[in-house]
């Protein structure tokens, strides 16, 4: 395929997919919300879950973004070094953001820093944000689209602990963040935790953790154990939907980690709201694609 033709095709698909992600929740999130909603017996919690359900139906029926805050658009790209259109992707994703903003339509959310002007296009310097992982031998490309509103971005926090504080310090940090800032982030939340060597590595991993399915577990048994302990523990706090009290505070807790310096424990928390709008799409080198996050999705 000619590069130009390929870029056009990719732009078309990514424009539609970006809009789609703003209007439909991923399959795993939908299932989790249904499960949590069935567990509630408090009247206020039930009222809120019912509103969420009605809203998602209305969004699909009317073909509109389900939450008005579509965030600053982010793409997390895991691209094979041999994917033939790797060089086109940056331009493609910028153009897809511009077009999805007009066509979906999406609220204008990109404010240029220091100039302090809303660009009106959802693009700006370094925005849409693109994060790259390169896979050496592959010719395929996987893209996570993510829309995090202001509310669920605000709890984000990172810190470097001393080894003496141990995993206990990580535990305390997570609870402090979620109980003080989680309420305004539209719970039940997906909590992403990065445990790594410094603030920026931990922060990046905490965000990557949000792209794992809500009910998935870390492959390391102790990490998985800690995910479960934190999930159950945060649920016992009983934040409930919208912080109004209830059986669940979170949809899940996902931890991602790296090796680290012996004298540091970098920890970071990122949160996803109940309207966790992430989408995963995978392209083969011939640009045939599969949507992984939303079962039965058609663009």
């Amino acid at each position, binding site marked *: 395929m000619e590069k130009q033709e390929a870029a056009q095709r990719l732009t078309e698909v990514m424009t539609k997919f970006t809009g789609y992600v703003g209007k439909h929740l991923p399959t795993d999130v939908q299932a989790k919300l249904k499960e949590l909603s069935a567990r509630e017996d408090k009247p*206020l919690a039930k*009222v*809120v879950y019912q*509103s*969420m359900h*009605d*809203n998602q139906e*209305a*969004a699909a029926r*009317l073909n*509109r*973004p*389900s*939450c*008005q*805050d579509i965030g600053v658009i982010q793409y997390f790209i895991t691209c094979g070094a041999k994917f033939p259109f790797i060089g086109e992707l940056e331009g493609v994703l910028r153009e897809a953001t511009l077009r999805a903003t007009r066509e979906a*339509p*999406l*609220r*204008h*959310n990109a404010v240029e820093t220091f100039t302090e002007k*809303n660009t*009106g296009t959802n693009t700006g310097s370094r925005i849409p944000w693109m994060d790259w992982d390169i896979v050496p031998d592959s010719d395929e490309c996987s893209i996570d689209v993510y829309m995090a509103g*202001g*509310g669920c971005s*605000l709890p984000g926090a990172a810190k470097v602990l001393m*080894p003496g504080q*141990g*995993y*206990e310090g*990580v*535990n*305390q940090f997570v*609870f402090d963040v979620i*109980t003080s800032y989680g*309420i*305004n982030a*539209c719970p039940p939340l997906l909590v992403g935790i990065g445990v790594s060597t410094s603030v920026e590595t931990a922060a990046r991993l905490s965000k990557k953790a949000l792209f794992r399915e809500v009910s998935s577990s870390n492959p390391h048994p*102790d990490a998985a*154990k*800690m995910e479960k*302990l*934190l999930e159950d*523990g945060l649920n*016992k*706090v*009983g*934040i409930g*939907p*919208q*912080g*109004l*009290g209830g059986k669940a505070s979170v949809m899940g807790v996902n931890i991602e980690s790296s090796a680290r310096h012996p004298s540091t424990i970098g920890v970071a928390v990122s949160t996803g*709201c*109940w*309207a966790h709008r992430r989408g995963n799409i995978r392209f083969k080198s011939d640009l045939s694609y599969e949507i992984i996050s939303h079962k039965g999705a058609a663009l």
Partner: protein
Amino acid sequence: MKKILTTPIRDEDLEDLNVGDVVYLNGTLVTCRDVAHRRLIELGREIPVDLKGNAIFHAGPIVVEKDDGSFEMISIGPTTSMRMEKFEKEFIEQTGVKLIVGKGGMGPNTEEGCRKYKAVHAVFPGGCAVSAATQVERIEGAEWRDLGMPETLWINKVREFGPLIISIDTKGNNLFEQNKASFNARKQPIIEEINQQIRFIK
């Protein structure tokens, strides 16, 4: 039966409401958030919409302007109310607004405003922006459009707008403060219990 408030809202309509009650709104609901609050309170500019007896919504919507100059509400959901805490008491005093709709709780300043000037704060479930848009019958006007789409004062006629969960009532009770106190009381013992099981550094 649904309890419905209709604008203009009078003091006596709010008297019997308690935190945790669920109500719906008929009438005028004006979006009003960060910069609009700042303009009125800090910069002393006159707000170009009469809010007496009406409701405001801490929200930044998606609106489409049609070719004939009319507007269509596409998606409108609440934003975090706490950002307006600093201004809200004086805002209630100066405008005579009776119902403040947003997301999450507000603090002592708003509690005092609600108690003194007889107003309530209520939450609309966050993220339910399409449902909310379908409850907007029409947009009657737009002021301070220089602020851009999210911050413009959009004047909406709404019908059975809700559910609105009362979070601060006219007695100054505060649902989220009560909840926060119980979350914090539960938290530390849970943390200690987990700590026993994650001593991975030996």
